[in-house]
Structures are given as C-alpha cells and as structure tokens.
C-alpha cells in the first residue's frame, strides 16, 4: 500500500510539475483551442535529425522533439516535406533548405557543429578534395568553398569512413553527432587524421511560417520547459545509443574480415548472377513490354484508323446520298455493290433489293460492256451515254463517268457517277418539235398574211366603203368607192396628195377639226366622226368616217373608212314614219276594241230595255230605232277604221300589255 501511495504521489508531482511548468494566457489558450492539428515542414533527407524511413514515415531527433513539444500542448502534429504542398503548413524546421522561411525563429533547442576530417594535412580551397558525407548534402552551407568539388554521400558513417580513409584527397564532413563515432572508428583502426571543427554551426530550430507572435511565445515557453527538464538531451542521447549499436557491428568488421571477404565474394557472385539473371529477365520483360506496348500502340492506331475509316465511309455515304446524280459501285462481274439514294429516287428501285443483282438486268443490251470498259472518251458524246430501265419500265438516258477502286479484300470495283439526261433529251426533243411547229406556224401565218393582204387589197379595191390613207389629212391612197362617194372620176382626176378636208364642205371644217383634234388629244386609237362630204353638183351627203392610226411603211398614217349613211338615214326616216303609222294603227285598234265594248253595252242595255218594254209608244219605238241606227253608223265607221289599219292588225299582238291605255280615266269615271 505504501509503495502504491508513494507511486501515486510521485505521479501527481510529475503531473503538477508538468502542468505548472509553463502557463498560457487567454490569447494563447484561444489560439490552441482553435487549432487541433499543426503541420510542420521538415527535411526528408537529413539523418539522424529528420528523414523519411523505408516506410515513408518521418523519423529523427527533431521529429521526436516536435512530437514531444506538441504532445505537451495536447495537440496533434503532422509533417510534410518540401516536395509536397507547403501552403497550409504552420511551422518550418530549420533543416529545410528553403531560405525564404528563415526570417523568423524560435529559440534553438540544440546546436549542430561540423567537423572536417582530412587524409591530407593541408585543407585548401584551391585544392580538389573528394568530399565524403552522410546523407545530408550540406557542403553548400557548411563548406561553400568546396561546393563544386566531387561529393560522395553515404547512408552509413562506417562505409563513408572506410572509403574516406582510402582516398588521399578525401575530406570527411561529419556533425558532432557522428564525430564521436568517427573518433571511435579512428581509435579502432589506429589511424588519425587532421581534425578541424568548422566555424559553421547549425541550430536546430523551429521556424514560424508567418509572423504569429502568439504561437512563437507558446513554442518558446514549451521548448524552454523541455530544455529545462533535459528532455531534448534525453532524445538526443537515445539517438546516440541507437547509432552506437551500429558502431559495435563495425568494430567486429575486421575480426571477421576473411569470412566477410569470402561471403562478400560469394555475395558479389550471387549478386552478379542475380544481376545478369535480372538483366536478362529484365531485357526479356522489357522486350515483352516493348512488344506489348508496341502492339498496344498498333492496336490503338489500328482502332483509330478503323474509326477514321468508319467516319470517312459514313461521310462518303452521306455525301453520295446527298448527290443529285446516281452513284453506283459494281464489281468486275457487274454485280451491284452500292447505290446511293438518288438511284431509288430517279429509277424507283428499292436500294436494298437491287444490291447484289447484276447491272446487266437493268441496262440496255451492250451498255454493260460499255460501262465496264471504263473512262469513255468524253469527246465522243454518244459513247458516254447509257440507257437504264427504271422500276416502272421506262428507259432513262444517263451520261456516266467511271473509275477503279480496290476494296480492303483486294477486289476491284468500278465506281460510276450517272447523270440523268432523259429530261434534257426530252426537252431537246420538245424544243425541236416546238421549233418545227413555230416554223410551220410562221409559214402558215406568212401565207395567211399574204392572203390577208390580197384580201385586204381586194376588199379595199372593191369595198363599198370609201377607204383613204392619209398623213396630216394629205391623201396618200384612196379606193374606187371613195371616188364614187365624192363623185370624182378616178380615171380623169386623182385625189392623191390633195387634202382630205377638200371633200368636206367649208362650213363644216371647224366642227370636223374640233371633233378630230379632241379624239386625237384623248389618244383614242380609233374613233368615228359623222360628217358631210361634198359631192358633184354642190350637193352633200352624210358619211360616217371611222378613223384609225396605223403604221404603214414606217410612217404613222390615218386610215379613214367612209361609210355612206344616206341610205341608212333614209331607212331611219322610213322607220320613224312606220313607227308613227304603227302608233296610229295601234291607237286605232285599241280605240276600236275599247269603243266596241261600251258600244256593245249600249246595244245590250238598249236591247234589254226594248225587250222589257212590251208596249212601246211611237216616240219610244222611234227612239229605239234611232239608237240602233246610230250604233250601226258607229259600227260602220269603226269597220272603215279597222280596214285602214288592216296591215297592222295582221301583226297585232292581242297581249293586253301592249295595248294603249286610253280608257283609264273613262273607266274610272264610270266605276
């Protein structure tokens, strides 16, 4: 019990001592509370201070110090090296060679001193030395004057020492950590070398990445505490112990030299054998890899080519299908291998069923040989044409162009492009027919024109109407009828080049010219003027003249056709007289009809009274007789009137609508 209580008390003392070792203010506590993990940038290759072991884990004196430091702060710590991302780091180890981080520092927790051991007593910067060192490439920092010299970097100090001892120009660069080991090795081998401590020292420090004063104070406090408690010394001595174990092995090295030599030879032999085996195997593997990768590349290339070919074929098919001409591929036997969309559009065949059939089935006899003979002479137009039977059984004519191509299988194909010229031929034929038709038409028209001219001449010469061609009223030509109308003997006197106005009476000139000018000003091509013309014996007759402007021998002439309307006027007068007569007759007929009815009423009522009066006086008898006699007289007059209009009565239409209403007033009064 006592021992237990003593142990607990000791532990409590240790805990209290640790807890009271450093105190953090509120700001520092707040910073720590915000940060759970700290990331430190360390050197990956700086044995024994900080380096990556075979398991890719960071080890070393510094690493242990950092871990102990953050363990005291109860915070986790992670490490990274320069090759990795350095943007999110918090602290930088002093062994990191990147100079830009070395602006701020904490207190150093231990210092590394360097010694240069030389096989030659004279160490001179002007002399070439071979520099031997352990892992760390510090020559630039520690011995900048020898930076350009040849350098040998070892993983083990004993091997470095061994090679160094055999080099007359050797310069062994060791830190104080390895110095004790080298001293022991020198003692063991009874050798001594010039031994010089270099002025350059490197302090193990932890640099801040940023100027974070709070974190700097925290770290300083903890490091001071660790130094005060000799914790860092403990860590360093632990690493020295580890290294000494290695040194013990090196100490027995010479005692077992022969055995070691034998084993070394054996080992080397095995290594050489393994090397050759590996080299051969490697060669074989490499060759295999090469072959495989080459095959792979070829396969990829082949795949790419296939894709490109497939795309090109697709594009070609698209292009061919969009052609308005027929694209056709046949083999040397005439079997159809490919047809484009236009083939079915123009010829009406189903593209799927036509492929595989022979071209001879749809070509006219002899055209297959022509098509297979390839590249016809384009100068011979007819040779370049073939005729193909369409699905509907019509024959269509094409001009064609062909070329050879080889398939992947090595077969020879003939590619043909066919242009449909059936429509063109049809158009040519139609055009030719139309031309012939036009020529025929022209012939007919010419003949008709000739006949018309002859007819016109005949009509003009023999027309009853006077026909005059004149320019500005100056008569150029006049026919026989005109001479007859104006009463001039054409054999004795010519009216050519005389004024047309001469045949119009003087007093009508003004009216005639006004009418004529009005019509021409109104741009009337054709118009009629009724006027008088003078005839022989100071007489005038009425004529109706039809004026028309015509082109005659490149001159604009007035064609005047004079029609004698004397007869027409006479007929009009006669017609008016007849109309008058008809009106009178109609009136007479209507009057006759309309008088007869009341007359019949008078007669009827007289008869009724006569019948109803049984005993009549002499006066009454005379009155009845007088009435009957008067009615008889009226009836006679009516009969005479009727005989006067006999002609009219024959054509009289008894339709009541045509009768004259002469009795409306009379009838209304009696109603």
């Amino acid at each position, binding site marked *: 019990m006592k021992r237990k209580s003593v142990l607990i008390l000791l532990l409590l003392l240790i805990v209290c001592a640790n807890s009271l070792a450093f105190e953090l203010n509120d700001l520092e506590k707040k910073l720590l509370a915000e940060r759970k993990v700290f990331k430190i940038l360390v050197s990956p290759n700086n044995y024994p201070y900080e380096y990556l072991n075979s398991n890719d884990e960071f080890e070393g004196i510094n690493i242990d110090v950092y871990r102990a430091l953050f363990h005291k702060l109860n915070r986790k710590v992670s490490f990274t090296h320069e090759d990795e991302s350095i943007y999110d780091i918090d602290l930088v180890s002093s062994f990191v060679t990147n100079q830009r981080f070395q602006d701020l520092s904490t207190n150093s927790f231990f210092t590394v001193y360097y010694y240069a051991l030389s096989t030659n007593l004279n160490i001179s910067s002007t002399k070439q030395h071979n520099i031997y060192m352990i892992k760390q490439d510090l020559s630039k920092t520690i011995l900048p004057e020898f930076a350009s010299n040849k350098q040998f970097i070892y993983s083990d100090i004993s091997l470095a020492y061994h090679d160094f001892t055999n080099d007359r120009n050797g310069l062994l660069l060791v830190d104080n950590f390895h110095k004790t080991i080298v001293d022991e090795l020198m003692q063991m081998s009874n050798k001594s070398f010039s031994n010089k401590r270099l002025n350059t020292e490197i302090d193990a420090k932890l640099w801040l990445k940023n100027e974070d004063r709070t974190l700097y104070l925290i770290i300083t406090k903890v490091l001071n505490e660790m130094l005060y408690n000799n914790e860092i010394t403990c860590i360093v001595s632990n690493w020295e112990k580890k290294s000494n174990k290695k040194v013990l092995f090196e100490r027995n090295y010479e005692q077992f030299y022969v055995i070691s030599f034998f084993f070394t030879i054996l080992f080397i032999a095995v290594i050489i054998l393994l090397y050759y085996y590996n080299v051969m195997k490697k060669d074989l593997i490499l060759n295999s890899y090469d072959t495989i990768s080459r095959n792979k590349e070829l396969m990829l290339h082949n795949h790419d080519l296939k894709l490109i070919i497939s795309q090109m074929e697709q594009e070609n098919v698209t292009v061919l299908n969009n052609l308005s001409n027929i694209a056709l591929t046949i083999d040397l036997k005439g079997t159809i291998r490919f047809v484009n969309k236009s083939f079915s559009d123009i010829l009406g065949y189903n593209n799927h069923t036509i492929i595989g059939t022979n071209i001879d089935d749809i070509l006219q006899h002899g055209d297959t040989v022509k098509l297979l003979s390839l590249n016809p002479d384009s100068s011979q137009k007819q040779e370049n044409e073939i005729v193909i039977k369409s699905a509907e059984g019509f024959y269509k004519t094409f001009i064609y162009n062909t070329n050879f191509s080889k398939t992947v299988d090595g077969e020879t194909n003939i590619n043909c492009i066919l242009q449909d010229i059936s429509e063109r031929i049809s158009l040519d034929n139609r055009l030719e027919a139309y031309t012939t038709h036009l020529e025929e038409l022209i012939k007919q028209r010419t003949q008709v024109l000739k006949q018309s001219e002859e007819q016109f001449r005949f009509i003009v010469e023999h027309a009853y109407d006077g026909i005059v061609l004149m320019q500005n009223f100056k008569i150029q030509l006049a026919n026989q009828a005109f001479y007859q109308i104006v009463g001039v003997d054409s054999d004795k006197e010519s009216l050519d080049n005389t004024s047309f106005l001469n045949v119009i009476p003087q007093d009508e000139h003004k009216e005639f010219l006004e009418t004529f000018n009005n019509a021409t000003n109104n741009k009337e091509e054709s118009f009629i003027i009724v006027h008088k013309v003078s005839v022989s014996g100071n007489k005038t007759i009425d004529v109706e003249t039809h004026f028309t402007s015509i082109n005659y021998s490149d001159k604009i002439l007035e064609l005047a056709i004079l029609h004698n309307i004397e007869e027409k006027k006479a007929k009009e007068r006669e017609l008016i007289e007849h109309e008058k007569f008809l009106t009178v007759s109609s009136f007479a*007929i209507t009057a*006759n*009809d*309309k*008088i*007869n*009815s*009341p*007359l*019949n*009423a*008078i*007669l*009827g*009522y007289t*008869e*009724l009274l006569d*019948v*109803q009066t049984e005993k009549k006086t002499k006066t009454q008898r005379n009155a009845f007789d007088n009435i009957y006699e008067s*009615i008889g007289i009226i*009836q006679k007059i009516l009969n005479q009137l*009727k005989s006067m209009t006999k002609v009219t*009565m*024959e054509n*009289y239409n*008894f*339709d*009541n609508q045509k*009768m004259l209403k002469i009795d409306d007033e009379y*009838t209304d009064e*009696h*109603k």
Partner: protein
Amino acid sequence: MKKILVAEDEKVMRYMIRDFLESFGFEVILADNGLEAYVLWKQYSPDLVLTDINMPKMNGIDLLKKIKHIKPEFPVIVMTGVTIEKSVKLAEESQANAILEKPFKMKDLVTIINQSIVI
C-alpha cells in the same frame, strides 16, 4: 238554273251581260280578268264560260286553253273587240265553241248560249 261565268275586264259590259242574262233566267258569276275567271271556274263549276280575249293577268285565249285542257267538252264562248285573224285562229285552234265580234246582239248571245249548253 244554269250558271254562266262571265270574264270581261270592261265593267259596264260585264254588268250589262249579267243584267241581260239574269233577265233570261241564268245565274251569272263575274270575273274581271282571266286568272280570276279560272279560279272561279274551278270553284263554282259553271255550265258555260263567256270570255273576252283582251284582259289583264290572263287573256281569254289562255283561259280557253286551260279549261279545254282540263275539260275538252266544256262550252266556252269567246268575245272580241277587234277581229284579228291571229286571235280568231288561236281561238278556233283551242276549240272555242263560238267567237262573237263586238258589238253583237244579246239575243244572238242567248241563242248561242242555249245551243252550247244543250249540246
């Protein structure tokens, strides 16, 4: 009592014929145009039709044709103020029973009516 349908557009003439025939014991139906006469003929079924030729709406010849088309044996007497050959010919062709030229004696008309009805 025999029924006589008189078609005459002249009012005085129409009434005179009515008065005269009624005094001879006939029943008289009056119409002042051919169309009215045709309607009354179908409505009252008279024994004889006496018609003028010149009348409004429908003339006497057309009335005669219509009646003869339906009843070819029905007696129709035609009166005319003017003896036009054409109208007379048409009346004859349409089988008028008699054609009377105005002015005619009413006694002659009664005689013809009696003859036509007896027939």
